[in-house]
């Protein structure tokens, strides 16, 4: 574990980043096209297990597409096409015999805008992934509800009103409910697409504390526009620009001593 947060030398694209000791997601030569437009170009990166990897870069640099390619959500766009390889703990997730549904059970996702299901209660939202995949045992569901809500640091706030509508919660609580919902299906990797960008500073801090807590058990990849957030809560940072992975390395090094001029310009706020 400690080896993961040690600086990796030569961690730029030009010299290929050294693989982290335990890689949860290994990406090799990934390119993604929407129609004829290349959104990602030949990305190679190893995402360390039980660590937080932040993806930063200006709007339109492909960071969300990269995130969505890890659980094949980008395929919802019918024009999407990919080249390259992504392995999840060694399993090729784009192999012909792998269904996207199976990949998505192993790789959970939290979105920018909190989206609890309005027709369901708080508890039903947490267990929806289990119930719609066939779990009927009430004891199991109740146990998983509490466990997931505790992990999402929401249990104490909602334990007395589990059957209230989910949309009665505040914005920050709704986002933590969405995290609990994603955790309830026990994924191996959790993807977060700007999970705090619509929240106030207090709610944001709660989400960041939660991310640091969760990395004990989960591999987390977080897309963020907020440079401080990346610096505060991530172990590794990848900087994307115009569809290319410009630089990848330990967060402290990316922010204090970037190897690339473009990275330095971006993290110091000179563009983007």
């Amino acid at each position, binding site marked *: 574990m400690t080896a993961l947060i040690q600086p990796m030398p030569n961690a730029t694209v030009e010299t290929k980043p050294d693989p982290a000791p335990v890689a949860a997601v290994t990406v090799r030569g990934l390119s993604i096209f929407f129609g004829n437009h290349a959104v990602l170009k030949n990305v190679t990166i190893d995402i360390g297990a039980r660590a937080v990897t932040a993806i930063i870069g200006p709007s339109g640099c492909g960071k969300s597409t990269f995130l969505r390619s890890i659980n094949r959500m980008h395929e919802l766009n019918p024009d999407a096409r990919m080249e390259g390889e992504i392995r999840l703990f060694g399993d090729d997730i784009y192999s012909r015999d792998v269904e996207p549904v199976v990949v998505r059970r192993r790789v959970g996702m939290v*979105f920018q805008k909190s989206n609890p299901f309005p027709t369901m209660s708080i508890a039903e939202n947490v267990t*929806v992934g289990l119930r*719609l995949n066939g779990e009927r045992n009430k004891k199991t569901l109740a146990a998983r509800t509490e466990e997931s809500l505790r992990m999402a640091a929401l249990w104490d706030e909602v334990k007395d009103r589990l059957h209230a509508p989910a949309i009665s919660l505040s914005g920050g609580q709704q986002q933590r409910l969405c995290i609990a919902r994603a955790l309830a299906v026990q994924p191996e990797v959790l993807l977060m697409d700007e999970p705090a960008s619509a929240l106030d500073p207090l709610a944001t801090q709660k989400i960041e504390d939660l991310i640091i807590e969760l990395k004990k058990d989960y591999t987390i990849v977080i897309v963020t526009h907020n440079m401080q957030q990346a610096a505060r809560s991530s172990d590794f940072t990848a900087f994307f620009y115009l569809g290319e992975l410009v630089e990848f390395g330990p967060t402290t090094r990316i922010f204090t001593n970037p190897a690339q001029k473009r990275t330095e310009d971006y993290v110091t706020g000179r563009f983007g």
Partner: protein
Amino acid sequence: MTVSNHHWRKARNVFMQAFTFVCAILVILPLLLVFFYLLKQGAGSVNWAFFTELPKPVGEVGGGMANAILGTFILISLASCLGVPVGVLGGVFLSEYSHRRLNWWIRFTADIINGVPSITWGMVVYALIVLPMKGFSVLAGGVVLGLIMIPLIMRTTEEVLQLVPNGYREAALALGIAQWRVIVQIVLRTALKGIVTGVMLALARVAGETAPLLFTAFGNAYWTHRLTEPIAALPLQIFNYAISPYDDWHRQAWAGALVLILLISGINICVRTLTRDRFSKRA
């Protein structure tokens, strides 16, 4: 900014608000007029016999429209059995599965069909069902009303499904839930109220259809026992009684129209109550 300018803006605002209010009243005024006129003309003839007795032969006073009331029930139930599943599933296909060119054609066809006069449908079903089966029938009446319902329900279903934010679909798919389950349990459930509204509008529309039934259900002065027999329906009965020369029948036609409106309102309220979601009061 001068003070007088501010006053002028305020006055304009008050005027426009009043104008939109008057327009809103103009919308509901015809409905109220129809309803009160029906009450005035028909309420006196709505009695127990009207709901329980068959029509009396020409010249005899009294009798009721029991067979026509039941007939309308049966016809719109049959029509719903055909129109609701096909219409809703068609709407689901249009909204949830993207086949750009095919969808364009389906939409285009549905919109044209929506504009086809209902009497045309009556003739088509007359040729396709009544002639081969050698007789007017309940079945033909149900089918023609169902056919009219399909494009109506399909388009409204598609429109309300499009209103369901994509975030819900993505959230559910990202949980590893299969797409058909996402559609049934998340998308349709979220849009249920709107779909029910679409179905109710279609139901109200076909419940009042008369022309297509002239060629299919035909009408019946007695009870109907088989799907292959002609059947009475309220709009048919209203039509027949209204053009008759007898005062008692005219009164009964008014009563029939009133009962038809109440019937549709009743079904509407029942279905809305049954499909109300648990949180709607709070939302």
